[in-house]
């Protein structure tokens, strides 16, 4: 059914259609509207049978999900930013135990300085946790990815994060097609666990493993994600057949067939990038876009195939490997090993810094001429940075960096665009 609705509300409805049995909720912006929506549905009886548990921390949220999933219940939670970091130990534990929990990450920056706005630092910090990570470009895709995620997670008995940009998607009202219960039931069978806590057949889950078997257990986690590389496109194709639209998959290309220059990105910024590319195409530029939906597992072959006929690429990412450069860019470079393609990185949109078409036009223009440094910090205020660096050279007690920045820049939050 078509609806004009908020991204979080749409996701809450999609989750409910997946018939979760245990939902753990702990408030952190910008995911709160999702669990609020689900809480209301459980309270009213609209979503039943389902236990909605208000926990005391994100660490508890993931831990309750671990217990529920191990006991055979379809389990869901949502988090973001500091919350994801607070539950990090349990995040690794859930995948180590092979529990197919689905979690929405409403992507948000990590402090300090504390910042509630969108970038991808949070889920990318859990890159090696053993969770799969699927990035939604639109709210429709966020809805659809959750439905596919439960199916994939339970098939492989491994957990999945569905990542959607905080505020940009979670709080945006747009048209979303919410599927029917019959459609979802037909696509997503009931949860049949590979392992379950049951007094009738008692097993020990979570035993201590030493050097004699630890590598094998870890390799099997890797093997699961390699299986997911095969299954993700198949599940997307099945989804298209059942629901009538393209959603999910490993990667998505846009105008790449004859492109000499390709922009690579994840999440909602792909919309702005495509708009920019449309305008450049009209002006005769051979430029295209590669969206990465599946960040983990990382589709090395598919990325390589999409880039192989181009001349250069730029990874535009909302994350920063401090002391090194790009996080996604490193993976992309791995994918094009030996091709001789010229690769560039742009760090953009950290902490919610708007990524505007004007900035992208300028960036892509320089990229086509290969006039970019290996790593570009898009729209960085060099004056403010240099002023602070100079201050630190001059004064030992130069004070808190964030406060200095705010003081130097003044009130300019509304001046982007």
């Amino acid at each position, binding site marked *: 059914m078509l609806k004009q609705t908020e991204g979080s509300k749409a996701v809450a409805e999609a989750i409910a259609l997946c018939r979760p*049995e*245990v939902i*753990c909720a702990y408030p952190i912006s910008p995911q709160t509207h999702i669990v609020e929506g689900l809480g209301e549905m459980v309270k009213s009886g609209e979503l039943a*049978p*389902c*236990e909605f*548990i*208000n*926990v*005391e*921390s994100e*660490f*508890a949220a993931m*831990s*309750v*999900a*671990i*217990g*529920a*999933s*191990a*006991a*055979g*219940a379809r*389990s869901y939670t949502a988090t973001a930013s500091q919350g994801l970091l607070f539950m990090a*130990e*349990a995040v690794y*534990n859930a995948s180590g*135990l092979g529990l197919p929990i689905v979690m929405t990450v409403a992507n948000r920056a990590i402090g300090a300085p504390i910042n509630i706005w969108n970038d991808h630092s949070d889920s990318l910090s859990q890159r090696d946790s053993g969770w799969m990570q699927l990035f939604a470009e639109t709210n429709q895709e966020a809805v659809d990815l959750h439905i596919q995620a439960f199916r994939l997670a339970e098939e492989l008995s491994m957990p999945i994060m569905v990542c959607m940009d905080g505020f940009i998607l979670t709080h945006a009202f747009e048209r979303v097609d919410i599927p029917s219960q019959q459609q979802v039931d037909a696509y997503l069978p009931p949860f049949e666990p590979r392992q379950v*806590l*049951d*007094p009738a*057949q*008692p*097993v*020990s*889950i*979570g*035993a*201590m*493993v*030493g050097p*004699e*078997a630890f590598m094998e257990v870890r390799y099997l986690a890797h093997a699961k994600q390699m299986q997911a590389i095969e299954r993700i496109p198949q599940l997307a194709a099945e989804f298209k057949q059942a629901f009538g639209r393209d959603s999910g998959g490993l990667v998505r290309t846009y105008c790449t067939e004859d492109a000499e220059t390709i922009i690579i990105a994840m999440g909602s910024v792909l919309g702005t990038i495509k708009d920019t590319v449309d305008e450049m195409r009209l002006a005769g530029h051979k430029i295209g876009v590669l969206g990465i939906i599946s960040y983990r597992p990382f589709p090395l072959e598919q990325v390589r195939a999409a880039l192989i006929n181009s001349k250069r690429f730029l990874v535009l990412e909302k994350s920063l490997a401090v002391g090194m450069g790009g996080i996604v860019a490193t993976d992309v470079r791995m994918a094009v090993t030996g091709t001789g393609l010229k690769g560039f990185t742009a760090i953009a949109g950290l902490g919610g810094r708007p990524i505007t078409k004007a900035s992208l036009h300028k960036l892509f223009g320089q990229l086509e001429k290969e006039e970019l440094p290996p790593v570009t910090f898009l729209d960085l205020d060099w004056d403010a940075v240099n002023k602070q660096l100079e201050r630190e050279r001059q004064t030992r007690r130069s004070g808190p960096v964030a406060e200095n920045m705010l003081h130097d820049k003044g009130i300019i939050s509304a001046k982007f665009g």
Partner: protein
Amino acid sequence: MGFQPVKFYQTGTFTVGNRLLAADERSVQAGQTRSNSINSGHRACQGCGEALGARYAIDAAMAESNGQLIAVNATGCLEVFSTPYPESSWQVAWIHSLFGNAPAVATGVAAAMKVKGRTEVRVVAQGGDGSTTDIGFGCLSGMFERNDDVLYICYDNEAYMNTGVQRSSATPPAARTATTMPVGSEPGNVFGQGKNLPEIAMAHGIPYVATATVADLRDLEYKVRRAMKMHGARYIHLFVPCPLGWGTASSDTIRMARLAKESGMFPVFEAEHGEVTGVLKIRHKVPVEEYLKPQKRFAHLFGTHARPDMVARIQAIADRNIRKYGLLNGHEIDDPADDETCHARFPHLNPLPEGEEANESLREFHVNEGVN
């Protein structure tokens, strides 16, 4: 000869391992249907109080739930010595997740059982004092506050034994640990205000809180069974001496637990909805020295550089416990034969016939030799 009269000494006692009592008077552990939840072959140290306590507690919980039990375990000695891959001592559905999340994992298991309508399945979570009083404290408080249907059992050996005897917030004052060495002017652990988990649990107003020691396993079984008859969040704090960490003889585990209780260092009581409903009285009051001296972790309080001042401060703690919980009330006894409290402690047992004291021990059993 058809019958031969045989006299079994102690056969009339309620000794926890007595298998010669009538079936309904036996402890769970002395019963034929005990579940052996944590089976032999695990790798606990000789004389481990925690292994003993867990065995009795989980078997009692299994008995009360008719075998419909799921156990959640925090990281710690119990987890490590019971499940070195690929072996497991557990003959009960069992999960270990992390050091600090056992209460929350148990909440999840209970929620799953509820949503699936499997109301007969009960959930026990267990961890050591480090897990319970320190790293898992937040999750435990959350589980209490929500009154989730979980019995949490803390096995308190008063330090992080698994990692090599470091101080926890349950470590007593003056005790030597690897991180509170007996050096300087205030040797051993600090004299802080403590962190009384049973009282903190009571402050949550949960249905049931109890303390117990491995010196009184009948009492432990009774409290576990009592807790398992209830629903909601329940907490049992079990005192389990650790020969390795305390520097005591492995044959002294029970004695140390008894001395902790008899000295007033560890009050044994139960409480419902935040109110104390019963205490185990001190039977033979002993000064704290008697409890402290056999333990090498307190050796620096005695001998050539004795610290009677610190012993006195510990005695003051015991005295405060005794006052606070009414552990004496003039009922302490000198002669075990006078113990009339025994029945009160085991209300699940049938009363003995009029005039027959529990501990007047000779009963005659006839052994039928000639008939199969």
